[in-house]
Every structure is written in C-alpha cells, then in structure tokens.
C-alpha cells in the first residue's frame, strides 16, 4: 500500500510540474497567483489590459466610456443599469463586428453580466482584447451588485 501511495504522490508531483511548465508557454496560460480584487480565468497576455472595478466606481467612471450589459436581450429589456447598452454575449461571441463597428479602440469599456460568478464579462474581455481594445473594465459583482447598491436602473424603458 505504501508503494502505491508513493507512486500516487509522484504522479501528483509530476502533473504539478508539468502543468506549471506548460502553462508558461501556453497561449492561453493563466497567472498562477492572483490578488483578491481580480477574477480567475483571464489569460496572462491580456491581464494588463483588463481591470476589475468596484460597482460604485464604475457608475462614476462609465460616463467616460461605454457601459456594456452582456446579459441576454430579454434580461436587458427587463431591467439594466442606466446608460448601459446591450451586447448580448451570445451574439458577441458569434460575431463581434456589428457591435464594435464605429467604437474607437481607446474607448474604455465597462462590462457587466449577472453576478460575481458569471463568467461572461471575462470571456467577453478576451474577445474585445482580440479586437484591439486595451481599456477593458470588468464590474465586480455584475448586475446583482449594481442592484444591491441601489444604483440607477432602467426597467422596461422607465428609469427606476
């Protein structure tokens, strides 16, 4: 039994070394250590262009750029952050061109999706980075944090 556990430990160790080594050269390699105010799943190459921003700070700063709601069109219509436009991730993933047409690459983009665990902002940030945008801000906590902080919303076309 001891030898089996020893072999298992070697396999664990070997896979650890292998994963760290390959991750260094992987085109979508991830930073192994991330700080508290960042989210996992963002490749190293775009890490410097993607910033995580508090919802209240985003409310103030988004006026300088574009506030983008990545949720589905129906959820957006139901309610959304005041001043946000809908770039439904589903559509953005298929073809980003119609969305980014006419948007200057240096425009700061403030992205949000449903909540803290929603991966859409992170995934959209990768698409937008590939399209040449370098000022990407992900709003922490997404729309649920926006609602939770009583920030202005538009519901069915009315301001709340």
């Amino acid at each position, binding site marked *: 039994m001891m030898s089996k*556990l020893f072999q*298992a430990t070697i*396999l664990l160790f070997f896979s650890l070394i292998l*994963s760290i080594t390959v991750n260094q050269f992987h085109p979508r390699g991830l930073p192994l250590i991330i700080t*508290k105010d960042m989210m*996992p*799943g963002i490749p190293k190459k775009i890490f410097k262009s993607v910033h995580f921003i508090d919802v209240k700070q985003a409310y103030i700063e988004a006026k300088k750029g574009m506030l983008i709601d990545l949720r589905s069109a129906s959820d957006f219509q139901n309610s959304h952050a005041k001043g946000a436009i809908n770039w439904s991730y*589903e559509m953005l993933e298929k073809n980003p061109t119609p969305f980014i047409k006419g948007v200057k690459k240096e425009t700061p983009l403030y992205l949000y999706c449903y909540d803290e665990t929603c991966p859409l902002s*992170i995934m959209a940030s990768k698409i937008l980075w590939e399209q040449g945008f370098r000022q990407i801000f992900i709003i922490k906590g997404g729309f649920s944090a926006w609602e939770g902080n009583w920030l202005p919303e538009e519901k069915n076309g009315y301001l709340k």
Partner: protein
Amino acid sequence: MGRKLVTRRKEWLFKIIRIILGFIFLASSIEKIIYPDIFASIVVKYQILPLWSVNALSIWLSYLEAVVGIMLILGLWEKASAILASGMCMLFLIFLSSALLRGIKLNCGCFFLETSTSSPRSWATLWQEALLLFSSILLGFKKR
C-alpha cells in the same frame, strides 16, 4: 481449469475497465488543457474554492487528469493511478452535490467546456460520476 478461465475473464474485464476509464480521463482533460481560461471560469461557478486558488488548481487538475488517463491506458502504476482517479471522482461528486444543494445551475465542465447553463447538471445525472468512482475504486483496490 474452470477457475483459471474465470480468473482470465476477470483479468480481461479489469483490463477493459482500466482502458475505458483511462480514455475517459484523457478525453475529459483535452479541452481543459487547450482552454484553461474557460475551465477556470467554470470552476468559479461551483463557488467552493477561494478565488485566488482557482487558476492554479484548475490547471493542475487538468494535467493530473491527463497523466492519470495515460497511465491507466498504458497500464503503468495502475493501482496508484486508479486511487488518484477515485480521489478526483470523489472530489468532483462532492463539488457537484454541494453546488446542487445550494441551487447553483451549472454544466459540469467535464468534456466540452460550455459556460452556458442551457442543460444544467441535476441529481439524476450524478450516476455518471458515481459509475466512474465505482470503476476506479474497483481498479484501485482489486486483489492481484
């Protein structure tokens, strides 16, 4: 003579289970290795691991799956690999059950990495993981 035949059949059965299990582990690791960013985003949705650890652990897990899969297919360090396989299955069962108990909708991220929750996992689909766990325990603790 009869006993020998039964033993030989048993050996073949274990061999088949080992190879199938190995292929399942290897296949499930491929997309995770190609798209570590998407896999990490899926792991976040389970809401179990602290966020700072997700990147490192999700990368490690993908390669561990691949290594265990290859070892099982080749029949090298069979028992040690099967013990690790059962550990991973057990961990996954715990993660999935915990997420289901908390009402979190998610795809397991087992083979094809989908972040949408159009066909979320349910208690009814846990048998697949249970079957994998049973097979790996069978291999890991079988008598010579």
